[in-house]
């Protein structure tokens, strides 16, 4: 079960071979950056060293990284409360990201946003979101801008299986559909919205059927196979630019609890173990070795480098100052001329 099917594997090998070594290097690096970042955050939380709560992306990396590997810097993205993977996938300064988690002045949001509100508008990252389903209309509106400008850019909109039941999903996808907006809606079905399983919260087997309600294409992919995600989004991007919105359900799993306090009462150890077996990082690694594009030691080096990058980010964050209380009133309103 942990392995890719033969067919999947053949496709994965083909996809890997179609990509440059640099590109794959970047993708594998990002996968490992996410994992290392989340491990560090989990550690911080377990020690009570960070304030608030956080939602970790470990286990789901292939979705964000595979999808966003299709995007250019000026393409856009909206993310979720579980946003670290998307944020890294879209390209980010890890130091400023870690600094934000620690609430520092040097953080992306100058310490005002924290884990759930990291954005980087310089790289087309329109922000994480604390409201389930909250980013879906925003991505859709960004799609209007892109449609009006007609510059060949797309928006990727991430949200969870839980968000699929918010009214914003429905209203937004319909709007994108009638206006042919270049938006790729990606539902990360990690099987649960907090404690409530997707199976219980929806009465459909394959969530991608929801696309039919809006007359747009909908597909389901193995979200733990980065190459499958990559191909699906590649196709979606073409469609988005030419025709209009596209809906992808990426089947995946979160390895950690929902947020910092989660006794995991709603799922079994066996289930977790089964999914850990399908960890997207070793899966990707196996393909890269099999195609011969990377040696094991090259990949080890990447993994090592990623951990070091995170340590450096931590160092930067820890050495950064807290924002001054005097800055508390800043940034409510933008200046206007």
């Amino acid at each position, binding site marked *: 079960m942990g392995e890719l099917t033969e067919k999947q594997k053949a496709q994965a090998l083909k996809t890997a071979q179609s990509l440059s070594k640099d590109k794959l290097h970047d993708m594998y690096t990002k996968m490992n950056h996410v994992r290392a970042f989340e491990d560090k955050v989990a550690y911080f939380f377990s020690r009570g060293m960070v304030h608030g709560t956080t939602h970790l992306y470990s286990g789901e990396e292939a979705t964000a990284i595979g999808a966003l590997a299709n995007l250019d810097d000026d393409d856009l993205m909206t993310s979720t409360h579980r946003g670290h993977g998307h944020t890294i996938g879209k390209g980010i300064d890890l130091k400023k990201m870690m600094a934000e988690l620690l609430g520092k002045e040097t953080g*992306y949001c100058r310490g005002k*946003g924290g884990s759930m509100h990291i954005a980087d508008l310089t790289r087309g990252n329109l922000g994480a979101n604390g409201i389930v389903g909250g980013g879906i209309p925003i991505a859709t509106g960004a799609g209007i*801008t892109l449609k009006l400008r007609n510059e060949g850019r797309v928006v990727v909109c991430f949200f969870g299986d839980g968000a699929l039941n918010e009214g914003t999903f429905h209203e937004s996808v319909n709007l994108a559909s009638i206006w042919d907006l270049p938006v790729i809606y990606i539902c990360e079905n990690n099987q649960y919205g907090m404690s409530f399983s997707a199976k219980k919260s929806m009465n459909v087997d394959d969530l991608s059927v929801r696309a039919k309600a809006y007359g747009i294409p909908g597909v389901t992919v193995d979200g733990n196979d980065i190459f499958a995600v990559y191909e699906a989004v590649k196709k979606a991007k073409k469609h988005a630019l030419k025709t209009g919105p596209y809906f992808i359900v990426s089947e995946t799993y979160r390895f950690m609890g929902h947020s910092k306090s989660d006794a995991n009462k709603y799922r079994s150890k066996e289930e977790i173990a089964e999914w850990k077996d399908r960890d997207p990082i070793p899966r990707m690694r196996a393909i890269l070795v099999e195609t011969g594009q990377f040696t094991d030691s090259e990949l080890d080096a990447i993994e090592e480098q990623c951990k070091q990058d995170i340590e450096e980010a931590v160092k930067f964050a820890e050495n950064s100052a807290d924002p001054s209380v005097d800055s508390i009133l800043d940034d409510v309103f933008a200046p206007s001329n």
Partner: protein
Amino acid sequence: MREITYAEAIREAMSEEMRRDESVFFFGEDIGIYGGAFGVSVGMIDEFGAERVRDTPISEAAIIGAAAGAAVSGSRPIAEIQFSDFISIGMDQLGNQAAKMRYMFGGHAEVPMVVRAPAGSGTGAAAQHSQSQEAWYCHIPGLKVVIPSTPYDAKGLLKTSIRDNNPVVFLEQKLLYRKKGEVPEEEYTIPLGKADIKREGSDLTIVTWGRMVSMVLEVADALKDQFSIEVLDPRTLVPLDRDAIVTSAKKTGHVLVVHEAVQTGGYGGEIVATVADSEAFYYLDAPIKRLGGLDIPIPYNPELERNAVPTPEKIEQAIRDLMA
């Protein structure tokens, strides 16, 4: 000077800004060929086309949220919500998304959008189509809130709102749409945050906005031999021109706030609290009074509807009580 209606003034403001800046676009329910539920946008689709004047499905959360998304990605959307009562459907997108993005992102975002919506009672449309909920929006940091009381103010304030780099809730007054007033042909704008003294006086300050302004002015005129009444229209509730209110209160020593919205929890409380905790407190010769709408949903029957909100009679009575 030429006279045009409040609705025409709004249409002119939108059209001029759309001509001036092509990042401005306009969308909402039935704003295209239908021209909007109140005829505000008649003809705009002919000039600007269906790309920039977009009819939407009935999806208020998506409309408001899409405005935020369009704004943060470089457009300057104007979203029309057919009745301001329906903003409640997109309340999360307005209050938790559009208003907060800039602050949450540490100042690294601009969200230049306007949500236009008609407010107020008096049309026989009952409880779900007649509300004045400005107090809600004023309680959300990150939003500006504008309520024009004349065609002149409507045009100048809307142009400024469209150029503002922040989300603005622009509450139009249904009963004013067909009212005419002087509006110059030449370009002008009105800054947000500056109150307008609609009538000078020395005995009593009445702070009021929206369609109540003309009602209060009429009462003030009718009583002119008895009281010299100053009528202060803040025009924008956020930012609020607190100085103007305090200055007027110091001058007159009597303050009455009149608004159409339900009195309990209304923005009148903010005005009263502004005065009560200012140096004007020491100049007051009487309690600070509010006259808001009754604490009820707007009823259908016309006579009940009229009595659900301030009337000239109630305003006069409040003035007499205060000056007694």
